Protein backbone atom coordinates (compact mmCIF):
# COMPACT_ATOMS: atom_id res chain seq x y z
CA UNK A 1 0.00 0.00 0.00
CA UNK A 2 1.54 3.27 -1.06
CA UNK A 3 1.48 5.99 1.49
CA UNK A 4 0.72 9.56 0.47
CA UNK A 5 3.84 11.77 0.24
CA UNK A 6 3.16 13.69 3.43
CA UNK A 7 2.72 10.59 5.49
CA UNK A 8 5.85 9.05 4.09
CA UNK A 9 7.97 12.08 4.90
CA UNK A 10 6.47 12.20 8.37
CA UNK A 11 7.31 8.59 8.89
CA UNK A 12 10.84 9.03 7.57
CA UNK A 13 11.46 12.09 9.71
CA UNK A 14 10.11 10.42 12.81
CA UNK A 15 12.38 7.46 12.20
CA UNK A 16 15.42 9.71 11.73
CA UNK A 17 14.56 11.67 14.83
CA UNK A 18 14.00 8.50 16.82
CA UNK A 19 17.26 7.04 15.58
CA UNK A 20 19.16 10.11 16.72
CA UNK A 21 17.40 10.12 20.04
CA UNK A 22 18.52 6.53 20.57
CA UNK A 23 22.07 7.33 19.41
CA UNK A 24 22.54 10.41 21.59
CA UNK A 25 20.96 8.84 24.64
CA UNK A 26 23.19 5.83 24.06
CA UNK A 27 26.25 8.05 23.91
CA UNK A 28 25.33 9.76 27.18
CA UNK A 29 24.52 6.42 28.81
CA UNK A 30 27.85 4.93 27.78
CA UNK A 31 29.75 7.97 29.09
CA UNK A 32 27.84 7.95 32.32
CA UNK A 33 28.44 4.25 32.77
CA UNK A 34 32.14 4.75 32.12
CA UNK A 35 32.57 7.70 34.47
CA UNK A 36 30.16 6.89 37.29
CA UNK A 37 32.74 5.23 39.55
CA UNK A 38 35.32 7.89 38.86
CA UNK A 39 32.83 10.68 39.62
CA UNK A 40 31.72 9.08 42.87
CA UNK A 41 35.35 8.68 43.88
CA UNK A 42 36.22 12.28 42.97
CA UNK A 43 33.21 13.60 44.87
CA UNK A 44 34.12 11.58 47.94
CA UNK A 45 37.75 12.53 47.72
CA UNK A 46 36.98 16.25 47.47
CA UNK A 47 34.61 16.06 50.42
CA UNK A 48 36.98 13.97 52.50
CA UNK A 49 39.81 16.40 51.75
CA UNK A 50 37.69 19.37 52.80
CA UNK A 51 36.75 17.64 56.06
CA UNK A 52 40.23 16.26 56.62
CA UNK A 53 41.75 19.74 56.51
CA UNK A 54 39.75 20.76 59.54
CA UNK A 55 41.06 18.07 61.89
CA UNK A 56 44.80 17.78 62.54
CA UNK A 57 46.50 14.93 60.69
CA UNK A 58 46.98 11.94 62.93
CA UNK A 59 44.08 12.77 65.21
CA UNK A 60 41.84 10.25 63.47
CA UNK A 61 42.21 7.09 61.44
CA UNK A 62 38.70 6.43 60.18
CA UNK A 63 36.99 7.56 57.00
CA UNK A 64 35.17 10.65 58.13
CA UNK A 65 32.41 10.23 55.60
CA UNK A 66 31.58 6.70 56.68
CA UNK A 67 29.03 7.24 59.42
CA UNK A 68 27.56 10.73 59.19
CA UNK A 69 24.92 11.35 61.82
CA UNK A 70 22.09 13.82 61.36
CA UNK A 71 21.95 16.48 64.03
CA UNK A 72 19.63 19.39 64.55
CA UNK A 73 19.64 22.00 67.28
CA UNK A 74 18.83 25.71 67.52
CA UNK A 75 22.33 26.31 68.85
CA UNK A 76 23.79 25.24 65.52
CA UNK A 77 21.61 27.73 63.67
CA UNK A 78 20.91 25.41 60.72
CA UNK A 79 17.46 25.40 59.20
CA UNK A 80 17.43 21.62 58.65
CA UNK A 81 19.19 18.62 60.11
CA UNK A 82 22.80 18.48 58.94
CA UNK A 83 25.35 15.70 58.92
CA UNK A 84 27.93 15.53 61.71
CA UNK A 85 31.07 13.55 61.00
CA UNK A 86 32.67 11.73 63.91
CA UNK A 87 36.41 11.10 63.88
CA UNK A 88 37.85 8.10 65.71
CA UNK A 89 41.38 7.06 66.56
CA UNK A 90 41.94 3.36 67.23
CA UNK A 91 38.23 2.96 67.77
CA UNK A 92 38.02 5.75 70.32
CA UNK A 93 36.12 8.90 69.30
CA UNK A 94 38.62 11.73 68.89
CA UNK A 95 36.54 14.57 67.51
CA UNK A 96 33.57 15.66 65.45
CA UNK A 97 32.85 18.03 62.59
CA UNK A 98 29.59 19.95 62.89
CA UNK A 99 27.91 22.21 60.40
CA UNK A 100 26.79 25.53 61.87
CA UNK A 101 25.10 28.60 60.39
CA UNK A 102 25.65 32.18 61.45
CA UNK A 103 22.30 33.82 60.59
CA UNK A 104 23.48 37.39 61.13
CA UNK A 105 26.23 38.00 58.58
CA UNK A 106 26.46 41.38 56.87
CA UNK A 107 24.52 40.06 53.89
CA UNK A 108 22.81 36.84 54.81
CA UNK A 109 23.81 33.60 56.45
CA UNK A 110 27.34 32.26 56.76
CA UNK A 111 27.68 28.47 56.71
CA UNK A 112 30.56 26.99 58.70
CA UNK A 113 32.14 23.64 59.39
CA UNK A 114 33.31 23.49 63.00
CA UNK A 115 35.73 20.77 63.99
CA UNK A 116 35.82 20.00 67.74
CA UNK A 117 38.23 17.61 69.42
CA UNK A 118 36.95 15.18 72.02
CA UNK A 119 38.39 17.32 74.83
CA UNK A 120 36.34 20.33 73.76
CA UNK A 121 39.10 22.25 71.99
CA UNK A 122 38.47 23.57 68.49
CA UNK A 123 40.41 21.71 65.81
CA UNK A 124 39.52 24.16 63.10
CA UNK A 125 36.76 26.16 61.46
CA UNK A 126 36.09 26.65 57.75
CA UNK A 127 33.55 28.79 55.94
CA UNK A 128 31.77 26.81 53.25
CA UNK A 129 29.23 29.38 52.11
CA UNK A 130 28.73 33.14 52.47
CA UNK A 131 27.68 36.29 50.63
CA UNK A 132 29.83 38.85 52.45
CA UNK A 133 31.25 41.94 50.75
CA UNK A 134 34.31 41.17 48.61
CA UNK A 135 37.39 42.82 50.07
CA UNK A 136 35.86 43.36 53.50
CA UNK A 137 33.85 40.51 55.01
CA UNK A 138 35.20 37.80 52.74
CA UNK A 139 38.37 37.64 54.82
CA UNK A 140 36.64 34.83 56.72
CA UNK A 141 37.70 32.57 53.83
CA UNK A 142 41.01 30.85 54.43
CA UNK A 143 42.00 31.66 50.85
CA UNK A 144 41.75 35.40 51.60
CA UNK A 145 43.09 35.64 55.15
CA UNK A 146 44.36 33.33 57.90
CA UNK A 147 41.89 34.88 60.35
CA UNK A 148 39.73 31.76 60.56
CA UNK A 149 42.69 29.85 62.01
CA UNK A 150 42.57 32.04 65.11
CA UNK A 151 39.90 29.66 66.44
CA UNK A 152 42.25 26.69 66.52
CA UNK A 153 42.92 25.47 70.04
CA UNK A 154 40.22 27.65 71.60
CA UNK A 155 37.55 26.13 73.79
CA UNK A 156 34.60 27.19 75.94
CA UNK A 157 37.00 27.94 78.81
CA UNK A 158 39.76 29.60 76.86
CA UNK A 159 38.82 32.34 76.43
CA UNK A 160 35.96 32.49 78.89
CA UNK A 161 32.45 33.65 78.11
CA UNK A 162 33.32 37.35 77.80
CA UNK A 163 36.30 36.66 75.57
CA UNK A 164 34.10 35.08 72.90
CA UNK A 165 33.59 38.31 70.97
CA UNK A 166 35.53 40.53 68.60
CA UNK A 167 37.99 42.96 70.15
CA UNK A 168 35.70 45.88 69.46
CA UNK A 169 33.11 44.28 71.74
CA UNK A 170 35.71 43.54 74.40
CA UNK A 171 36.52 40.01 73.26
CA UNK A 172 39.67 38.30 72.09
CA UNK A 173 39.09 37.89 68.35
CA UNK A 174 40.28 40.39 65.76
CA UNK A 175 37.77 42.19 63.61
CA UNK A 176 38.67 43.25 60.06
CA UNK A 177 39.43 46.78 58.96
CA UNK A 178 36.08 48.14 57.85
CA UNK A 179 34.11 45.02 58.77
CA UNK A 180 32.90 44.11 62.23
CA UNK A 181 29.58 42.44 61.61
CA UNK A 182 30.97 39.47 59.69
CA UNK A 183 33.59 38.31 62.23
CA UNK A 184 31.14 39.07 65.04
CA UNK A 185 28.62 36.71 63.46
CA UNK A 186 31.22 33.98 62.91
CA UNK A 187 32.57 34.21 66.46
CA UNK A 188 29.05 33.98 67.84
CA UNK A 189 28.17 30.97 65.69
CA UNK A 190 31.36 29.09 66.62
CA UNK A 191 30.76 29.84 70.29
CA UNK A 192 27.22 28.46 70.07
CA UNK A 193 28.44 25.36 68.24
CA UNK A 194 30.87 24.75 71.12
CA UNK A 195 28.05 25.14 73.61
CA UNK A 196 26.04 22.62 71.63
CA UNK A 197 28.94 20.18 71.63
CA UNK A 198 29.44 20.64 75.34
CA UNK A 199 25.78 19.93 76.10
CA UNK A 200 25.51 16.88 73.86
CA UNK A 201 29.05 15.59 74.00
CA UNK A 202 28.30 12.15 75.41
CA UNK A 203 25.54 11.41 72.96
CA UNK A 204 27.40 12.83 69.95
CA UNK A 205 30.50 10.74 70.52
CA UNK A 206 28.85 7.66 72.03
CA UNK A 207 26.68 6.86 69.06
CA UNK A 208 29.72 6.52 66.91
CA UNK A 209 31.30 4.02 69.28
CA UNK A 210 28.26 1.82 69.06
CA UNK A 211 28.09 1.89 65.32
CA UNK A 212 31.76 1.06 65.09
CA UNK A 213 31.58 -1.72 67.61
Amino acid at each position, binding site marked *: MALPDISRSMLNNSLVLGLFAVLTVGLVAVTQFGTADRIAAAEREAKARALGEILPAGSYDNHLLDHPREVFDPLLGNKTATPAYVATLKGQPSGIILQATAPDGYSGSIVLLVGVLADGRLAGVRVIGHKETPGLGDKIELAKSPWIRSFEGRSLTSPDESGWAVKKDGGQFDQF*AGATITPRAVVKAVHKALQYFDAHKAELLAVQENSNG
Partner: protein
Amino acid sequence: MALPRITSPHAKGNNRTQRVMLLVAAACAPGALALTWLFGIGTLVNLVWASLVAVAVEAAILAVRRRPLAFFLKDGSALVTAVLLALALPPYAPWWLTLVAVGFAIIFGKQLYGGLGQNPFNPAMLGYVVVLISFPIPMTSWPAPHSVGVWEGLQHIFGLASLPDGWSQATALDSLKVNKSLTMDELWAQNPAFGQFGGKAVEWVNLAFLLGGLFLIHKKIISWHAPLGMLGALFVMSLIFWNGSGSDSNGSPLFHLLTGATMLGAFFIVTDPVSGATSNLGRVIFGAGVGILVYLIRTWGGYPDGVAFAVLLMNLAAPTIDYYTRPRTYGHRKAERGFKLGE
Protein backbone atom coordinates in the same frame (compact mmCIF):
# COMPACT_ATOMS: atom_id res chain seq x y z
CA MET B 1 21.53 62.46 29.11
CA ALA B 2 20.37 65.86 27.97
CA LEU B 3 18.09 64.85 25.16
CA PRO B 4 16.65 68.15 23.97
CA ARG B 5 13.02 67.54 24.80
CA ILE B 6 12.31 71.10 25.77
CA THR B 7 11.41 73.22 22.79
CA SER B 8 11.99 76.86 22.08
CA PRO B 9 11.87 79.71 22.97
CA HIS B 10 15.28 79.40 24.55
CA ALA B 11 16.40 82.61 26.13
CA LYS B 12 20.08 83.19 25.67
CA GLY B 13 21.65 83.87 29.02
CA ASN B 14 25.17 84.57 30.04
CA ASN B 15 25.63 81.18 31.64
CA ARG B 16 28.46 79.86 29.53
CA THR B 17 29.77 76.42 30.44
CA GLN B 18 32.99 77.85 31.80
CA ARG B 19 31.22 80.33 34.06
CA VAL B 20 28.81 77.66 35.32
CA MET B 21 31.62 75.27 36.07
CA LEU B 22 33.73 77.84 37.87
CA LEU B 23 30.77 78.98 39.99
CA VAL B 24 29.98 75.37 40.91
CA ALA B 25 33.59 74.84 41.93
CA ALA B 26 33.50 78.07 43.94
CA ALA B 27 30.27 77.06 45.66
CA CYS B 28 32.06 73.99 46.96
CA ALA B 29 34.34 76.24 49.01
CA PRO B 30 32.26 76.30 52.24
CA GLY B 31 32.00 72.51 52.23
CA ALA B 32 35.70 72.11 51.53
CA LEU B 33 36.55 74.51 54.34
CA ALA B 34 34.26 72.70 56.75
CA LEU B 35 35.86 69.37 55.87
CA THR B 36 39.31 70.85 56.36
CA TRP B 37 38.29 72.40 59.68
CA LEU B 38 37.06 69.00 60.82
CA PHE B 39 39.55 66.55 59.35
CA GLY B 40 42.65 68.59 58.56
CA ILE B 41 44.78 69.03 55.48
CA GLY B 42 43.60 65.85 53.69
CA THR B 43 40.69 67.42 51.85
CA LEU B 44 42.84 70.25 50.45
CA VAL B 45 45.50 67.79 49.30
CA ASN B 46 42.78 65.71 47.66
CA LEU B 47 41.49 68.81 45.89
CA VAL B 48 44.86 69.80 44.45
CA TRP B 49 45.92 66.28 43.51
CA ALA B 50 42.55 65.38 41.97
CA SER B 51 42.51 68.57 39.91
CA LEU B 52 46.01 67.94 38.59
CA VAL B 53 45.11 64.37 37.64
CA ALA B 54 41.85 65.45 36.03
CA VAL B 55 43.43 68.09 33.83
CA ALA B 56 46.30 65.79 32.84
CA VAL B 57 44.01 62.86 32.00
CA GLU B 58 41.55 65.09 30.14
CA ALA B 59 44.39 66.57 28.08
CA ALA B 60 45.84 63.15 27.31
CA ILE B 61 42.50 61.74 26.16
CA LEU B 62 41.71 64.84 24.08
CA ALA B 63 45.10 64.45 22.41
CA VAL B 64 44.36 60.78 21.64
CA ARG B 65 40.92 61.70 20.32
CA ARG B 66 42.51 64.52 18.25
CA ARG B 67 40.30 67.24 19.72
CA PRO B 68 41.40 70.83 20.33
CA LEU B 69 43.00 70.86 23.78
CA ALA B 70 42.49 74.44 24.89
CA PHE B 71 38.84 74.68 23.91
CA PHE B 72 37.76 71.64 25.91
CA LEU B 73 40.12 72.12 28.84
CA LYS B 74 38.86 75.67 29.35
CA ASP B 75 35.27 74.56 29.91
CA GLY B 76 36.31 73.51 33.41
CA SER B 77 34.16 70.40 33.51
CA ALA B 78 37.11 68.17 34.34
CA LEU B 79 37.91 70.47 37.22
CA VAL B 80 34.38 70.21 38.61
CA THR B 81 34.48 66.42 38.40
CA ALA B 82 37.79 66.48 40.25
CA VAL B 83 36.50 68.85 42.95
CA LEU B 84 33.35 66.79 43.57
CA LEU B 85 35.36 63.58 43.77
CA ALA B 86 37.95 65.11 46.08
CA LEU B 87 35.17 66.19 48.44
CA ALA B 88 33.45 62.81 48.32
CA LEU B 89 36.54 60.65 48.87
CA PRO B 90 37.84 60.11 52.40
CA PRO B 91 40.24 62.97 53.32
CA TYR B 92 43.30 60.75 53.70
CA ALA B 93 42.67 58.45 50.75
CA PRO B 94 45.98 57.22 49.31
CA TRP B 95 47.16 59.06 46.21
CA TRP B 96 46.62 56.10 43.87
CA LEU B 97 43.01 55.79 44.95
CA THR B 98 42.30 59.36 43.93
CA LEU B 99 44.20 58.74 40.70
CA VAL B 100 42.06 55.69 39.84
CA ALA B 101 38.81 57.45 40.78
CA VAL B 102 39.52 60.60 38.77
CA GLY B 103 41.01 58.66 35.86
CA PHE B 104 37.96 56.42 35.63
CA ALA B 105 35.59 59.35 35.95
CA ILE B 106 37.21 61.29 33.10
CA ILE B 107 38.08 58.40 30.77
CA PHE B 108 35.24 55.90 31.25
CA GLY B 109 32.67 58.26 32.71
CA LYS B 110 32.97 61.07 30.19
CA GLN B 111 35.43 60.90 27.31
CA LEU B 112 34.63 57.37 26.07
CA TYR B 113 31.01 58.44 25.64
CA GLY B 114 32.13 61.38 23.52
CA GLY B 115 32.98 64.07 26.03
CA LEU B 116 30.99 66.59 28.06
CA GLY B 117 27.30 66.51 27.24
CA GLN B 118 27.30 62.93 25.98
CA ASN B 119 27.83 61.11 29.26
CA PRO B 120 24.77 59.22 30.51
CA PHE B 121 26.22 58.92 34.02
CA ASN B 122 27.57 61.48 36.41
CA PRO B 123 31.35 61.05 35.93
CA ALA B 124 32.28 61.90 39.52
CA MET B 125 29.83 59.36 40.94
CA LEU B 126 31.01 56.72 38.45
CA GLY B 127 34.59 57.22 39.59
CA TYR B 128 33.46 57.11 43.21
CA VAL B 129 31.56 53.85 42.79
CA VAL B 130 34.49 52.22 40.97
CA VAL B 131 36.85 52.84 43.88
CA LEU B 132 34.15 52.14 46.48
CA ILE B 133 33.61 48.66 45.04
CA SER B 134 37.28 48.01 44.34
CA PHE B 135 38.99 49.31 47.47
CA PRO B 136 36.50 49.03 50.33
CA ILE B 137 39.06 49.39 53.10
CA PRO B 138 40.59 52.78 52.23
CA MET B 139 37.15 53.96 51.13
CA THR B 140 35.71 53.33 54.58
CA SER B 141 38.68 54.83 56.45
CA TRP B 142 37.48 58.23 57.63
CA PRO B 143 39.65 59.92 60.23
CA ALA B 144 38.42 60.90 63.65
CA PRO B 145 37.83 64.67 63.65
CA HIS B 146 40.88 66.75 64.27
CA SER B 147 43.17 63.78 64.76
CA VAL B 148 45.60 63.95 61.87
CA GLY B 149 48.46 66.43 61.64
CA VAL B 150 49.52 68.12 58.41
CA TRP B 151 52.83 66.31 57.95
CA GLU B 152 51.58 62.83 58.94
CA GLY B 153 48.58 63.34 56.70
CA LEU B 154 50.72 64.19 53.68
CA GLN B 155 53.03 61.24 54.30
CA HIS B 156 50.03 58.93 54.57
CA ILE B 157 48.44 60.12 51.34
CA PHE B 158 51.62 59.72 49.32
CA GLY B 159 52.56 56.38 50.87
CA LEU B 160 55.76 57.53 52.59
CA ALA B 161 54.58 56.51 56.03
CA SER B 162 51.33 55.18 57.37
CA LEU B 163 49.25 56.75 60.08
CA PRO B 164 49.27 54.74 63.32
CA ASP B 165 46.72 51.91 63.55
CA GLY B 166 43.30 53.02 64.62
CA TRP B 167 43.54 56.45 63.02
CA SER B 168 40.31 55.84 61.20
CA GLN B 169 36.94 55.49 62.86
CA ALA B 170 33.49 54.53 61.76
CA THR B 171 31.32 57.28 60.33
CA ALA B 172 27.93 57.99 61.84
CA LEU B 173 26.16 55.98 59.13
CA ASP B 174 28.58 53.06 59.63
CA SER B 175 27.98 53.04 63.36
CA LEU B 176 24.24 53.19 62.91
CA LYS B 177 24.39 50.18 60.60
CA VAL B 178 26.74 48.13 62.78
CA ASN B 179 25.12 49.09 66.08
CA LYS B 180 23.07 46.33 67.65
CA SER B 181 23.15 47.10 71.36
CA LEU B 182 23.24 50.84 72.10
CA THR B 183 20.33 53.23 72.05
CA MET B 184 20.75 56.29 69.86
CA ASP B 185 21.52 58.52 72.84
CA GLU B 186 24.26 56.18 74.06
CA LEU B 187 25.73 55.85 70.58
CA TRP B 188 25.83 59.61 70.15
CA ALA B 189 27.25 60.17 73.62
CA GLN B 190 30.03 57.73 72.75
CA ASN B 191 30.88 59.58 69.53
CA PRO B 192 30.63 63.35 70.00
CA ALA B 193 31.83 63.77 66.42
CA PHE B 194 28.49 62.54 65.11
CA GLY B 195 26.98 65.83 66.24
CA GLN B 196 23.45 66.87 67.18
CA PHE B 197 24.25 70.55 66.80
CA GLY B 198 26.96 72.23 68.77
CA GLY B 199 30.47 70.93 68.94
CA LYS B 200 32.81 69.85 66.22
CA ALA B 201 30.80 67.41 64.17
CA VAL B 202 30.08 66.22 60.64
CA GLU B 203 26.68 67.89 60.45
CA TRP B 204 28.44 71.21 59.90
CA VAL B 205 29.96 69.86 56.71
CA ASN B 206 26.49 69.17 55.37
CA LEU B 207 25.31 72.61 56.43
CA ALA B 208 28.28 74.15 54.62
CA PHE B 209 27.35 72.31 51.42
CA LEU B 210 23.78 73.52 51.91
CA LEU B 211 25.12 77.07 52.06
CA GLY B 212 27.08 76.58 48.82
CA GLY B 213 23.98 75.08 47.22
CA LEU B 214 21.79 78.00 48.17
CA PHE B 215 24.37 80.31 46.61
CA LEU B 216 24.11 78.37 43.34
CA ILE B 217 20.31 78.60 43.39
CA HIS B 218 20.58 82.33 44.07
CA LYS B 219 22.93 82.70 41.10
CA LYS B 220 20.44 80.68 39.00
CA ILE B 221 23.15 78.14 38.16
CA ILE B 222 20.94 75.33 39.41
CA SER B 223 17.21 75.20 39.94
CA TRP B 224 15.62 74.24 43.24
CA HIS B 225 13.64 71.32 41.80
CA ALA B 226 16.09 68.44 42.00
CA PRO B 227 17.50 69.27 45.46
CA LEU B 228 13.99 69.73 46.83
CA GLY B 229 12.94 66.42 45.31
CA MET B 230 15.87 64.57 46.86
CA LEU B 231 15.79 66.18 50.30
CA GLY B 232 11.99 65.98 50.43
CA ALA B 233 11.93 62.30 49.51
CA LEU B 234 14.70 61.49 51.97
CA PHE B 235 12.84 63.40 54.70
CA VAL B 236 9.53 61.67 54.00
CA MET B 237 11.14 58.23 53.82
CA SER B 238 13.05 58.69 57.06
CA LEU B 239 9.90 60.01 58.74
CA ILE B 240 7.81 57.04 57.63
CA PHE B 241 10.38 54.50 58.72
CA TRP B 242 11.50 56.31 61.86
CA ASN B 243 11.24 53.78 64.65
CA GLY B 244 12.36 55.84 67.61
CA SER B 245 15.82 55.93 69.06
CA GLY B 246 16.26 52.41 70.36
CA SER B 247 19.15 50.17 69.38
CA ASP B 248 17.44 49.12 66.13
CA SER B 249 16.79 52.71 65.08
CA ASN B 250 16.94 53.62 61.41
CA GLY B 251 17.98 57.15 62.29
CA SER B 252 15.87 60.28 62.61
CA PRO B 253 14.92 62.44 59.61
CA LEU B 254 17.22 65.21 60.81
CA PHE B 255 20.08 62.74 61.05
CA HIS B 256 19.55 61.52 57.49
CA LEU B 257 19.41 65.06 56.11
CA LEU B 258 22.62 66.12 57.81
CA THR B 259 24.85 63.09 57.46
CA GLY B 260 26.89 61.32 54.84
CA ALA B 261 26.83 62.86 51.40
CA THR B 262 23.24 64.14 51.58
CA MET B 263 23.80 67.85 50.95
CA LEU B 264 26.75 67.36 48.59
CA GLY B 265 24.53 65.03 46.60
CA ALA B 266 21.44 67.22 46.72
CA PHE B 267 23.02 70.43 45.48
CA PHE B 268 26.08 69.37 43.48
CA ILE B 269 25.34 65.89 42.10
CA VAL B 270 21.62 65.50 41.31
CA THR B 271 21.72 68.97 39.75
CA ASP B 272 24.12 67.79 37.04
CA PRO B 273 22.53 69.19 33.86
CA VAL B 274 23.97 66.47 31.64
CA SER B 275 23.15 63.21 33.39
CA GLY B 276 20.00 64.34 35.20
CA ALA B 277 16.50 65.04 33.96
CA THR B 278 15.85 68.28 32.05
CA SER B 279 12.29 69.48 32.64
CA ASN B 280 11.36 70.99 35.99
CA LEU B 281 8.88 68.26 36.88
CA GLY B 282 11.40 65.70 35.67
CA ARG B 283 14.02 67.16 38.00
CA VAL B 284 11.70 66.83 40.99
CA ILE B 285 11.00 63.20 40.10
CA PHE B 286 14.69 62.53 39.44
CA GLY B 287 15.68 64.02 42.79
CA ALA B 288 12.91 62.18 44.62
CA GLY B 289 14.07 58.91 43.08
CA VAL B 290 17.57 59.57 44.35
CA GLY B 291 16.26 60.44 47.81
CA ILE B 292 14.20 57.26 48.07
CA LEU B 293 17.06 55.07 46.85
CA VAL B 294 19.52 56.73 49.24
CA TYR B 295 17.26 55.88 52.16
CA LEU B 296 16.71 52.31 50.96
CA ILE B 297 20.45 51.71 50.54
CA ARG B 298 21.34 53.33 53.86
CA THR B 299 18.76 51.41 55.82
CA TRP B 300 18.52 48.01 54.16
CA GLY B 301 21.38 47.92 51.64
CA GLY B 302 24.88 46.59 51.79
CA TYR B 303 26.64 49.96 52.03
CA PRO B 304 26.40 52.61 54.76
CA ASP B 305 25.76 55.49 52.34
CA GLY B 306 24.14 55.26 48.94
CA VAL B 307 24.21 58.64 47.22
CA ALA B 308 26.57 57.51 44.47
CA PHE B 309 24.65 54.30 43.70
CA ALA B 310 21.32 56.13 43.84
CA VAL B 311 22.50 58.81 41.42
CA LEU B 312 23.85 56.27 38.91
CA LEU B 313 20.61 54.27 39.04
CA MET B 314 18.51 57.37 38.49
CA ASN B 315 20.84 58.48 35.67
CA LEU B 316 19.67 55.34 33.89
CA ALA B 317 16.06 56.43 34.38
CA ALA B 318 16.59 60.08 33.38
CA PRO B 319 15.77 59.72 29.64
CA THR B 320 12.53 57.91 30.52
CA ILE B 321 11.62 60.56 33.06
CA ASP B 322 12.26 63.21 30.44
CA TYR B 323 10.07 61.35 27.99
CA TYR B 324 7.09 61.38 30.32
CA THR B 325 7.52 64.92 31.63
CA ARG B 326 7.72 66.93 28.45
CA PRO B 327 6.36 70.37 29.17
CA ARG B 328 3.64 72.01 27.11
CA THR B 329 4.91 73.21 23.80
CA TYR B 330 4.27 76.93 23.18
CA GLY B 331 1.12 77.29 21.15
CA HIS B 332 -0.32 73.90 22.14
CA ARG B 333 -2.94 73.44 24.79
CA LYS B 334 -1.77 70.25 26.43
CA ALA B 335 1.60 68.81 27.16
CA GLU B 336 2.46 65.70 25.21
CA ARG B 337 3.18 62.96 27.64
CA GLY B 338 3.84 59.29 27.24
CA PHE B 339 3.35 57.03 24.28
CA LYS B 340 0.35 57.52 22.03
CA LEU B 341 -1.24 55.05 19.74
CA GLY B 342 -0.38 55.72 16.15
CA GLU B 343 2.71 57.68 17.01
